[in-house]
């Protein structure tokens, strides 16, 4: 992020490059925004610390509520839950200070948990509880302008939606949920410019919701039916078809970026399709590969690293669950490995040839 005194140069640079102008009032508002953001700027270490501190404090507070036996009091839990949620929203809106993020995150997370537990203790069905929490989290997203709270609210929406899909007891619903998450993430990332310019609030919420969507795809892929003997295993093809389709959809923007000549684009399409077809039957791998490519395409380092870890994990799980002999698995792995190494050398030579030209 630029420092406040660099804002004038930055705006002039963007005005010249894109033939737009920023009037004085807008320029002052932007400068004020930069000053406020700069004072609240945090390195990744501080963001991680805020989340860890919030998680630890939330767990300890839940422990306290357990020992004082408040879990049996429906109204006690509901009142405390709603009070904490409202308190965290008011705190984040009134006092825009980074150091209070831990308190706001702790209050909000504890509040949501107690709200949900209060509704459950009152005899409400788990589906309705999830629905209420989703509504509460969506209202929060409308009201707040805080990165951490937005992330927690978005994760709450994802987790409760997954719980709803799970409760419907069908592989179809989980596949549908993951397909929606994959489509949502692709659209959210590809339409970044449209979203951030459509509404000022979306410019604040874009990054935390993007991170929440990445977490959603990576975690919910583990709930897909595994193996061809699982009931309705074919519904797991929906998200993998969608992911492969999304990767092919991204190719027209990626190929020129890496220097593939227009005459070679058809070859590239065929090669990529051939490489992707085997992972049609490995939906988790297809989804995670899409996450990696999407996050790399916008230089989202956090999402990219999460994608790499997810890819290693899901490839391991895939081969572990394959209902084939170890010999066939080993031949498959070695064959895939050699193919990838050959592709590397072909690509390397292609790049070298065209760089010389």
């Amino acid at each position: 992020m630029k420092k406040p005194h660099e804002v004038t140069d930055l705006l002039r640079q963007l005005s010249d490059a894109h033939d737009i102008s920023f009037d004085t009032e807008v320029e002052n508002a932007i400068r004020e925004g930069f000053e406020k953001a700069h004072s609240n700027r945090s390195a990744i270490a501080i963001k991680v610390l805020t989340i860890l501190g919030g998680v630890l404090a939330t767990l300890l507070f839940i422990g306290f509520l357990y020992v004082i036996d408040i879990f049996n009091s429906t109204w006690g839990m509901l009142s405390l839950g709603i009070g904490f949620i409202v308190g965290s929203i008011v705190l984040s809106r009134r006092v825009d200070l980074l150091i209070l993020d831990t308190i706001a995150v702790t209050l909000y997370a504890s509040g949501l948990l107690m709200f949900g537990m209060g509704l459950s203790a009152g005899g409400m069905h788990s589906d309705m509880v999830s629905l209420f929490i989703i509504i509460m989290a969506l209202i929060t997203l409308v009201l707040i302008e805080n990165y951490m709270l937005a992330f927690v609210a978005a994760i709450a929406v994802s987790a409760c939606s997954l719980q709803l899909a799970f409760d419907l007891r069908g592989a179809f619903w989980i596949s549908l949920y993951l397909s929606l998450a994959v489509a949502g993430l692709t659209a959210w990332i590809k339409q970044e410019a449209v979203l951030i310019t459509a509404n000022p609030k979306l410019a604040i919420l874009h990054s935390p919701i993007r991170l929440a969507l990445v977490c959603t795809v990576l975690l919910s892929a583990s709930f897909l039916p595994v193996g061809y003997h699982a009931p309705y295993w074919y519904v797991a093809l929906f998200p993998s078809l969608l992911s492969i389709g999304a990767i092919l959809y991204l190719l027209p923007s990626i190929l020129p970026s890496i220097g593939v000549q227009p005459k070679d684009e058809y070859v590239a399409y065929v090669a990529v399709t051939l490489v992707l077809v085997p992972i049609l039957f490995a939906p988790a791998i297809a989804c995670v590969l899409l996450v990696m490519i999407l996050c790399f395409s916008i230089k989202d380092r956090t999402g990219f690293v999460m994608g790499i870890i997810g890819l290693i994990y899901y490839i391991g799980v895939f081969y572990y669950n394959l209902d084939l002999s170890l010999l066939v698995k080993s031949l498959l792995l070695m064959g895939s490995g050699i193919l990838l190494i050959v592709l590397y050398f072909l690509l390397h030579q292609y790049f070298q040839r065209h760089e010389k030209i």
Partner: protein
Amino acid sequence: MSTPDREDIHLISRHAQWPASSARKALEEHVHPGRKDWKQFLELFLIGTGVAFTLAGIIFFFAYNWDSLHKFVKIGLIEGLIVACTLVIVFSQLNKTLKNILLTAAAVLVGVLLAVFGQVYQSGADAYDLFLMWTIAIIIWVLIAHFAPLWLVFITLINTTVFLYADQVANNWPKMSPFMISFFINSGFVLAGVILGRLRPSAKPPEWLMIVVALGAIVMASTGLIAGKLMSRFNFDSLLGIGDPNFVALLIGSLVLYAAGLWYGFKQRKLFYLGAVPFSAIVVVSAFILIDADNDIVFLLITLFVIIATTLLIRWLINIQKNITHEKAA
């Protein structure tokens, strides 16, 4: 003139009404990866996954053919692969990164060779023997290659050896002892990395490796201290008590090395050490109080302690971050 980053473009979008096409163009020109980044990603991805898959396939192949292969074939094949890898590394014209990836693959194959050897000759050795031999066998490669992923494999092997030894051989050791030893070993590597960086800047380990190993050391110290305290509280181990030498050694070692970590983080302006070390201290202190608690209200007090301590820590880190920014601007 410096280029805008994603946060700048998002900030401007909040306050200015500029068209989506301009925002898209700004993102593509200044934020999204360029040709060099894409090429590097594709090449590293293809070679990395290619080598990993091939290696895994080899391991699975041996797992399948275990019973039917003659012992000389089993051992000979793996040794042949190791020799082939090293010949390619020494005599080929491949670039340095590729050679280091191959060397890492060879280092993993050494472990496979030792496992096969142990199974063929039914040496009756414990698992820690395998990991210890594996560690010793690859020391020279690790030192010569000075390749960060290979160092990570090496350090992981040392830690695994310690835990397996404690589990399989040293049954009379207190349960927290492997955590203590692992903490000192990992801290030693971090210290060595810092000193090496000072003496030979070109050989300085990459930051990600230092952070991973330091994080490992911090996790071991925290777990060891909490485990030691738990053991003493519930008398799981009659040797343990607050006067137990292992516990005292870990406590004093943690205090000294944590102080050193904080000093290093402050001097070098590295927020990771300034955040991770104090947070570990917060977790350990909270656990100590919780373990000795005999009152329900202690839970609430600890919650407040964690919130206040973390908030103060974040405030301190923000001030340091601001000072770093001012120093860079000056």
